[in-house]
């Protein structure tokens, strides 16, 4: 256990203040990235961080900005440590703000340990590949883009789409087979509206999931700088529960777009050279430091699974935020406006969606032996149907052959019966059986991607 330092350093010589930065005279012993309290003349205290340290000067980034700060009567107090989260098993069921203070009216956590919120990278040689299925109860995910323990699988959405509803549904329904009692949710709200945060918390409470949840809430009206620390706190809590207590943690981070916006805002204040669309050049590394904390470790029972949610600005998947995220995460679930407009729920675009870990997480002993074949064949049939649908909009469905018309129907039925399920929970077996029901409408020769033995075993007789 690391205890707080016995003394702090305080400096009064502030030479410059601008935006969110202040430049103070150098003090020996100040650490790079150390946490700082800035005391204003009025007595108000603001948090900050030493972002450039030298013998002569120390540059402090002040969270909340330097307004009302005067160079004469303000003081900078160096706390001798970087940001840490107090943890113990009692954090379960609690709600904290973006710097780890309790906001549920309860007492502060009696800490077993104070953990550095940045964590340390996992040794790649100590990792074990994720391979255990998490059932979300949503067909488009379980059947075609399965989530596995230790994976990081984001939801790419856009404003006005039902990503909150879908996330709440997943939180409500998700289960890990054989380890139900060890499953916990870490929920981090990053710069979302008060209403959205309230929706999630209400949902967790209603379903009785709150006792196995740890929440970190930073709403749109809270300080921007705390948006940077909120996901780090959530992941520190998750790592603690996973590696010290053997729990399977599902970390939901919403909305990572706000995190990236905060990163850009702070970077601009530091006068850094911007990269694409004004986002800092290190955004990839920064996001990776967050997402790569997911995984499983050799010899440890628990796991950290991350489900970040982000809204794509202007529905653009090539925007730097979804783009860099997609390069780090192991796939993505993409919500489609087009399907939403057709009245489908959940409106998941299965072509743009992908789970890189699906191969390891499905099959005999995990879901069902035919899962992989069903998954491949469903994709192939739906792709064929969508391709023909595109052609038929130009030449008319009448000009298509009978075989092609059959695929058109399959595509429609796939959307209506498989993807669109409403807020009901489906087991993975139910999901696969819906797939087989669709296959029954096709001639057997078309099922090229399915093993004969499965066709005999699972294909219902055509009706």
């Amino acid at each position, binding site marked *: 256990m690391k205890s707080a330092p016995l003394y702090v350093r305080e400096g009064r010589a502030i030479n410059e203040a601008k935006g969110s930065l202040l430049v103070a005279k150098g003090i020996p012993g100040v650490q790079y990235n150390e946490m700082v309290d800035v005391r204003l003349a009025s007595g108000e205290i603001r948090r900050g961080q030493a972002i450039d340290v030298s013998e002569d000067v120390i540059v402090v980034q002040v969270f909340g900005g330097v307004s009302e700060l005067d160079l004469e009567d303000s003081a900078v107090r160096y706390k001798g440590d970087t940001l840490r989260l107090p943890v113990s098993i009692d954090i379960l069921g609690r709600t904290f703000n973006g710097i780890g203070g309790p906001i549920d009216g309860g007492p502060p956590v009696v800490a077993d340990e104070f953990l550095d919120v940045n964590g340390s990278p996992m040794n790649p040689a100590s990792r074990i590949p994720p391979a255990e299925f998490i059932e979300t109860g949503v067909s488009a995910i379980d059947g075609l883009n399965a989530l596995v323990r230790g994976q990081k699988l984001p939801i790419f959405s856009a404003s006005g789409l039902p990503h909150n509803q879908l996330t709440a549904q997943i939180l409500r329904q998700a289960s890990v087979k054989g380890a139900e009692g060890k499953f916990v949710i870490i929920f981090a709200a990053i710069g979302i509206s008060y209403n959205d945060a309230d929706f999630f918390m209400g949902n967790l409470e209603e379903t009785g999931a709150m006792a196995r949840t740890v929440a970190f809430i930073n709403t749109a009206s809270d300080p921007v700088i705390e948006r940077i620390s909120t996901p780090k706190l959530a992941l520190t809590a998750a790592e603690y529960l996973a590696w010290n207590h053997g729990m399977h943690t599902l970390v939901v981070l919403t909305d990572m777009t706000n995190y990236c916006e905060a990163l850009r805002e702070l970077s601009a204040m530091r006068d850094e050279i911007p990269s694409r669309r004004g986002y800092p050049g290190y955004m990839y590394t920064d996001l990776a430091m967050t997402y*790569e904390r997911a*995984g499983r470790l050799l010899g440890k029972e628990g796991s950290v699974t991350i489900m970040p949610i982000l809204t794509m600005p202007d529905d653009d998947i090539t925007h730097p935020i979804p783009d860099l995220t997609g390069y780090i995460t192991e796939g993505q679930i993409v919500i489609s406006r087009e399907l939403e407009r057709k009245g489908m729920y959940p409106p998941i675009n299965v072509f743009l969606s992908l789970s890189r870990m699906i191969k390891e997480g499905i099959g005999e002993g995990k879901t069902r032996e035919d899962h992989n074949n069903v998954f491949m064949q469903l994709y192939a049939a739906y792709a064929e149907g969508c391709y023909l649908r595109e*052609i038929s909009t130009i030449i008319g469905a009448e000009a298509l052959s009978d075989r092609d018309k059959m695929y058109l129907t399959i595509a429609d039925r796939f959307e209506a019966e498989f993807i669109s399920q409403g807020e009901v929970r489906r087991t993975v077996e139910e999901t696969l059986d819906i797939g087989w029901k669709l296959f029954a409408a096709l001639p057997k020769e078309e099922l090229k991607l399915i093993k004969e033995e499965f066709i005999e075993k699972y294909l219902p007789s055509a009706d």
Partner: protein
Amino acid sequence: MGKIWRISGPVVIAEDMRGSQVFEVVEIGNEGLVGEIIGLEGDRAVIQAHEDTQGLKAGDEVKGTGGILSAELGPGIIGAIYDGLQKSLTDLMAGGNEFLARGIKSYALPRDKKWHFTPTVKVGDTVGGGSIIGTVPETGLIEHRIMVPPDKGGVVKAISEGDYTVEDIVARLEKDGEVQELTMMQKWPIKKPRPYSKRQPTERLLVTGMRIMDYMFPLALGGKAAIPGGFGTGKTVTLQQLVRWSQTHLNIYVGCGERGNEMADALYSFKELTDPKTGRSLEEKEIFIANTSNMPVVAREASIFLGITMAEYFRDMGYDVLLVADSTSRWAEAMREIGGRLEEMPGEEGFPAYMGSRLASFYERAGQVECLGSPHRMGSVTVTGAVSPPGGDFSEPVTQNTLRIVDAVYALDAQLANQRHFPAISWLTSYSLYADSVAECWNDIVPGWSETRTAALKMLQLEAELEEIVRLVGPEALPEKDKLLLLVSKMLREDFLMQNAYHEIDTYTTPERAQLVVQTIMKFNDLAQKALADGGNVAEFRASPVVRKISRIKDIPNETVEQSIKELWAEMEISLVAQKGGVA
């Protein structure tokens, strides 16, 4: 020894550093973080820290190590997992380090392990730099050949067989009255290419087992290739397939700023997989460098140079080595990040102006060479780098700079990936300049490759043109011969180019088998065209059982495939001709 004057991100400025050299490796602070001096101004040194600098203080000490960033080369390297600075991650794991704390240290080569050394030269022989003086059976697949370092050489004064550690002296040489002591380990600065005697043309085919590569856009041993593609297009799986099945002596996988879980997945799969030729574990011919995206960004820059240095070392022994780098874009971004911290004048999109030349200096270390010293031998380094263009847009600077250097490009296509056509290598935009230089080699394996390849590529090109029309008039409005072209090119795409990396048989295809499959599809085409002229129609061909059988060739084991395909040919002759009379 000096002390820290300023810290700003990964850039540390130290004073009292007079006497240091540029690129010298230093240890910073109490934890001894590894850093590299990248500039000297008077007695101040600008240091790039290879580890997270959080918690450092002005005044902390900085120690020089006297040497520049070098790789340790010697027995014990194969099968290891290193980070970008060649710390052994397997050793750290064995020591209980599940997380990589800062300043953590480990030797690259085990110091206590003894290897059996057998000399291949005797006392009195004269050996020059690069000459092989003995061997160590490192793994069942690779014999480690101990060489005289390139800058040494002379008359052998002492050498003897026995069990040695990498630090023990195995031989003494004398030159001009000066005695040189040789161990099995040598050190080499990673940014300096290792010398060779002569470059050679790249004319030997690298068999990768991936049909679209080997057959359509073959790569040569000693070649350099890039795989650009947006996220989710299958770069990593493609590269992993390359290091799994490529018919080389040794493969090096550099995970540079990529995913930890995928790295773990690769590591685990190599433990289980066996080499198709020898039946031995693939681990015995692999080296891994894992600098995942959350590990220190500056070490990312070193990881690529570390990998290529190791590749050259094994090349110098006379081996064919394949290096894959996933991903060079992350490497370039590390340069950008560091350049930004150093307040360098940025070039295009914030990348440093020297990015192009740095990329070239890496790719140019590929090649086939005549090695230094005796005995006379040849070795090669083949380099394949993944490129991750932002937004999948190939016009961005890293892709464009890479395309200027490499001779083969396997462009991954998001459209294909969305349709789950894997490997999503586009046959319309990919190319290989080695197709001509390895043609002789290919035609030796299977006569007639050049012709069938050209015919198949042409057919796919015609299909792409026809697709435009189909989108306007629909497939049913086409004349029969065009419908047939669509059917046959679809077979080429789905039954030949598409390949399942997770399928036991389909994952690796020999050139001979690839040729049989293409011949089958071409034969189908010929027969169907004849039948068409005799009044058949494409709808009937499509329903023919041979179409389904062709699509199932993938499931036939290698032992019986030739027999099965010959039977299929016979069946095609009968069934496709029978259409003539309208009999199904």
